[in-house]
């Protein structure tokens, strides 16, 4: 599998990608502000957008994408048909496929909706359905555009767990503004703003160095502590228990001085 982008300029966002070579596998964030071209970058990889300039070379790889609005990907009358249409009748009766299908249906909790129209599902359920389709298709590269949108806390955790278990067998690129969720399971990422970084950096470092404004008080506290050189980790704030552990250690060290 090889994906290489050279001297590319995208329309509208004007994102420039001097050179970007896809990692072979693993989980990576594609992060940056609204309108910077993250979704367009995915469209280029999916070959649904022609860049203004430059070239992309994609060899020997099957790419799947769960779009920002998963209902753009719904085409069938029932959840069952949505899941099965990419597979031939011969494939569908195969015993191994049947087992995989049963696993996928269970993983994304779709049995109860099996004969339901996908259009009657909630936004979170629609997203789970398209994720389930790609779970079954098992592409070499999976592009996820804002995958946590519309998912409740429990499903966000389940999605992170599923992605982590597949990290060793495929390349997954994730765009998201949901920093706590992304930082909870993704190690590195590419910053996308005017240009796309050629090499990945620690996602915690990207979060801190870009000083994004926030309405989350725990995140605000962490920025304040880091700005005053307190010895806390970049990712400590994403979980209250972890944050508490680090802050108590800090507080005790201050008390002992």
């Amino acid at each position, binding site marked *: 599998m090889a994906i290489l982008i050279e001297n590319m300029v995208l*329309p*509208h*966002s004007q994102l420039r990608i001097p050179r970007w070579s896809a990692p072979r596998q693993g989980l990576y964030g594609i992060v*940056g*502000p*609204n*309108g*910077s*071209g*993250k*979704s*367009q970058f995915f469209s280029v990889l999916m070959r649904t957008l022609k860049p203004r300039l430059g070239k992309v070379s994609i060899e020997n790889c099957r790419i799947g994408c769960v779009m*920002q*609005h998963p*209902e753009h990907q719904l085409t069938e009358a029932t959840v069952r048909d949505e899941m099965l249409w990419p597979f031939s009748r011969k494939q569908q009766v195969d015993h191994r496929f049947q087992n995989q299908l049963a696993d996928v249906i269970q993983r994304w909790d779709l049995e109860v909706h099996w004969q339901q129209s996908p259009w*009657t*599902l*909630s*936004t*979170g*359920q629609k997203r*789970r359905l398209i994720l389930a389709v790609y779970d079954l298709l098992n592409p070499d590269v999976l592009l996820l*555009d*804002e995958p946590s*949108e*519309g*998912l*409740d*806390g*429990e*499903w966000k955790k389940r999605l992170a767990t599923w992605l982590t278990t597949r990290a060793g067998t495929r390349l997954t690129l994730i765009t998201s*503004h949901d*920093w*706590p969720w992304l930082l909870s399971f993704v190690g590195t990422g590419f910053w996308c703003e005017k240009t796309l970084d050629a090499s990945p950096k620690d996602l915690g470092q990207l979060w801190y160095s870009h000083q*994004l*404004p*926030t*309405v*989350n*008080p*725990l995140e*605000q*506290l962490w920025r*304040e*502590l880091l700005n*005053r*050189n*307190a010895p806390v980790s970049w990712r400590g704030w994403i*979980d*209250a*228990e972890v*944050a*508490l552990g680090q*802050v*108590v250690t*800090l*507080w005790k060290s*201050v008390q002992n001085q």
Partner: protein
Amino acid sequence: MDIIFDHVVVRYDTGKMALGPVNLVVHGGECVFVTGPNGGGKTTLARLLSGILIPVSGELRMGDGIVRSEWPPDYVGWIQQEPEHQVVGANILGDVNLSSLWHASSYRQSVARTRQALKDTGLEPLGARAAETLSGGELHLAAIAAIMAQHAQVLVVDEPETMLDASGQLRVEKMLQALNEQGKTLFVISHNRIWGRLADRHLWVQDGKVEEMDQNGAAQRLADDWMTFCDGLQAITDRPFESCEVSQIGKLIWPF
């Protein structure tokens, strides 16, 4: 004006219960945080308020008795989860203008409304851009701008932070707060506990049932990190905080 849900029941076409029975009185100017698991009925509640769903039984009415089907067309503004469903203009300026022209009493007033909505959402530089050339976050702001131009008395906002980066989220939060301070009634539907802290009322919607609870109850169910953190810190340091203020806590744990 109060909004009264009186034994309201909504069913799917299959006859299965989607929501209800809902009995609730929301007072004018309140901010109501609506949360709960996926598929629980939150968006059904939004559709009911917006008037595109009609209850199979019960009644949704204003405090003066006027039922939903007779409310003025600009009374409820609905910002949907999927902004593409509501951005229909040839470009962003045109789309917001469409909303202004539809709801304002004069052309001059509509121009002023459009200008203000684009300014508040920070979309002035993108006014000439077509919807399909915008990112998801920009499109979401465009949908918000068009609803702002409507000047609705009741705003139903489904997942206000959808696709937005941190700056966009902050901007939307400030806009909604300002509207609430002006006396507008807000229904904010979200999985994000941040909105719970801004609200006067907290509703948990699950399996079609609407349960009202206090802020702590909703925060516990959503596992509110900040409250967990503050409670834990007070217990360990044995220092009761008057308020859980970021700067106060920051100075306590690292005074350098």
